């Protein structure tokens, strides 16, 4: 008798994304499906809108990472109107963006992905949440996370007017300059951010790396895939979130391609499946070979670990030292261990804080010249940034008046959709045998999925990202035998 396990972020009725695990007659895992149950069609209702409104429309794709869509859209407009922003404007955008990356990455570690490690992978679900983390690390640290979140969000508000759906981006610049007082304040926040990111890495060291069991998990085969990787790099091939070329490396770590945002269509294609609303991007030049890993398969991964794998290092000193330490510890590049995404995320948080500090020290950043007015006729524009959850692409075409005629969006989490499905399948196959499914084991299956910090709001262009997850175990008739949940 075959059995079906449904991991549904919030049960069928409340559901916004679910994982179906089918067991075979022996109770071993047969096949896994990662389903995204909605879409909203931003691509279509953007048509007819004035292009300059896109940075105000597209953030509504996701209230968790609106800053990412805002900046990506603004960059697509620079390209569309062929206008180069003044140096101060570029720096201000990157500064605002670094504050966002710092906030989002630290929040994920402490409140979302971190509980698995900090509290323990097989701790009772009721403790595997933010409260469990507070109990373990102390209220004071939780207070620090909340404080840093608030400070970073205040910086975004300063530029964007509002932190949920900022509005300051314009083709060729930004809507207002930075004052000297605010510059100093931001530099202070950045300093605190650097300290906090180092402290988070220290916790990762103490809790994960000093625990043999966890190290075995991180380096074990259950959470490992040999895939291609994709991410943005600066001119020295260092990680960059805001601007640069896109680099792809093979599963062996060799450069496979390096391209400008304009060339994305020669490198990325998307596969449609009938059982989910989400599309599966893959490398066009390798081809779609199904949900499989290795050099023959076009499946690639994005987000923190992928960015570190495609780069030659970090552009700031403290993050660079941590980067070297990670690769030394895990045996060189590329690292294929999915759980190392958590480690890479913290190294990136440190980089974001250092970069923020660097930019805030730059005297040019208070230059009042923050806009160039576009003069050429718009036609087509492409913008790419690195979102916390991976490479984000906005591609617009317009008529000669700058009215959108076509919009194509490839969103961060979606790049990882095929890999997420494979990771869950592999973890499930390794952990679930003979129909035996314990709470702890199921959480370990979910850990494969949480390492990517998948955001359903982005994936579906529709729904809130940070959903609790519940696991329904169903018999062959489809009725639920047992429900296991996590927050």
């Amino acid at each position: 008798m075959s059995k079906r396990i449904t991991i549904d972020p919030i049960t069928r009725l409340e559901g916004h994304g679910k994982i179906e695990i089918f067991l075979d007659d022996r109770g071993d895992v047969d096949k896994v499906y990662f389903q995204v149950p909605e879409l909203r069609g931003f691509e279509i209702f953007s048509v007819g809108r004035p292009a300059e409104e896109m940075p105000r429309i597209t953030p509504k794709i996701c209230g968790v990472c609106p800053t990412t869509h805002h900046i990506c859209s603004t960059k697509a407009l620079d390209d569309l109107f062929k206008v180069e922003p003044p140096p101060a404007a570029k720096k201000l955008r990157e500064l605002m963006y670094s504050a966002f990356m710092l906030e989002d990455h630290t929040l994920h570690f402490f409140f979302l992905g971190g509980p698995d490690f900090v509290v323990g992978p097989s701790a009772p679900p009721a403790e595997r949440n933010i409260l469990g983390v507070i109990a373990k690390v102390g209220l004071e640290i939780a207070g620090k996370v909340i404080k840093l979140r608030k400070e970073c969000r205040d910086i975004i508000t300063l530029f964007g007017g509002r932190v949920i759906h900022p509005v300051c981006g314009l083709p060729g610049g930004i809507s207002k300059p930075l004052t000297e007082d605010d510059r100093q304040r931001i530099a202070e926040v950045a300093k605190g951010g650097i300290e906090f990111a180092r402290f988070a890495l220290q916790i990762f060291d103490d809790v994960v790396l000093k625990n043999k069991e966890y190290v075995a998990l991180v380096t074990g085969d259950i959470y490992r895939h040999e895939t291609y990787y994709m991410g943005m790099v600066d001119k020295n091939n260092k990680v960059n979130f805001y601007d640069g070329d896109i680099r792809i490396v093979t599963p062996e770590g060799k450069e496979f391609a390096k391209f400008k945002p304009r060339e994305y269509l020669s490198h990325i294609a998307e596969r449609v499946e009938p059982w989910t609303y989400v599309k599966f991007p893959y490398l066009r030049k390798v081809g779609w070979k199904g949900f499989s890993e290795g050099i023959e398969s076009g499946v690639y991964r994005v987000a923190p670990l992928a960015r570190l794998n495609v780069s030659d290092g970090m552009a700031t000193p403290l993050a660079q030292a941590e980067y070297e330490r990670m690769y030394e510890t895990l045996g060189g590049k590329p690292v294929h261990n999915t759980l190392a995404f958590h480690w890479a995320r913290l190294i990136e948080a440190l980089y974001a804080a250092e970069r923020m500090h660097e930019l805030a020290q730059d005297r040019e950043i208070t230059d009042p010249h923050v806009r160039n007015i576009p003069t050429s006729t718009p036609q087509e524009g492409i913008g790419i940034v690195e979102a916390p959850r991976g490479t984000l692409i906005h591609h617009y075409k317009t008529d000669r008046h700058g009215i959108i005629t076509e919009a194509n969006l490839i969103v961060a989490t979606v790049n990882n959709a095929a890999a997420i499905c494979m990771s869950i399948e592999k973890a499930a196959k390794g952990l679930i045998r003979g129909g035996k499914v314990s709470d702890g084991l199921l959480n370990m299956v979910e850990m494969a999925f949480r390492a990517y910090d998948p955001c359903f709001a982005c994936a579906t262009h529709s729904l809130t990202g940070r959903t609790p997850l519940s696991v329904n175990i169903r018999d062959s008739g489809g009725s639920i035998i047992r429900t296991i949940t996590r927050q």
Partner: protein
Amino acid sequence: MAKPKVAFYWCASCGGCEEAVVDLAENILKVVEAVEFVLWPVAMDFKIKDVEALQDGEIAVSFINGGIRTGEQEHVAKLLRKKSGLVVAFGACAHLGGVPGLANFSNRDRIFDYVYHKSPSVDNPERIVPQEKTVVREGELTLPEFYNTVHTLDQVIDVDYYLPGCAPPPDLIMNAVEAILTGNLPEKGAVLSPDKSLCDTCKRKVTKPEKTVIREIKRVHEVMLDPEKCFLDQGIICVGPATRDGCGERCINANMPCRGCFGPTSRVDDQGAKFLSALASIIDADSEDAINKITDSIADPAGIFYFYSLPASMLKRRLDI
């Protein structure tokens, strides 16, 4: 006395309204102390079946954010209505349809056709389209039904109050919670934000034109934006005159014009129509031709005037879809 039960639920929303609640920061602890949450999927682990088990009216208040786009969203909204004394439409999408409501300029078929066939990155020679039911070797997989258009919350259930904004600002959320806890509520159907226009409190109001001045409409990217002067006076479309006050002029503070996320005041039925009449009164032209010439120069008036409110407007959607 037992604490009042509260539910917080999202439909077709982006998660921004949830973030807005997290942004209450320390205040959230006060709220958590004063009430008992029976449903808050993003933060706590309660299930729809727990809500089904409650008595009708047992929940003191349900805050619902997001528009209604699928069958299951409508189902949950109806369930919460039945179980709740009060329902508050939380945020612009539940209140007015929101930016995703612009999808009502199109429909499901066009969205599917573009996303799965025409998009330049898609490679789909077999012309596969997601199905509500798919039989795979291992069994059957299902997806929920996707409606043709977006609805506001009060188009599917009776709504008691509205918390406006995309997302609602923290002070208005706290005011609303306090008003509900103390029973100090305005009349049913009220929008919980000051009933005057954004221009009334805008710092740039002093330069706002009272009579005919605009000779030309410009777009935000075409000119340097003066950080002091009223946007309308600069010939830039700012929907402030047709928008309710209460956001703290968030966009204006970033030196960008208002797009109307708070919706209109109580004296106005249709935000776009109200804005058009406000605009007409300040256009300086001596003939109808001249007026038409100026209004024709507005890029996408329907999209801009109804940026957040198309599903709630008299237009509602394109009639040919």
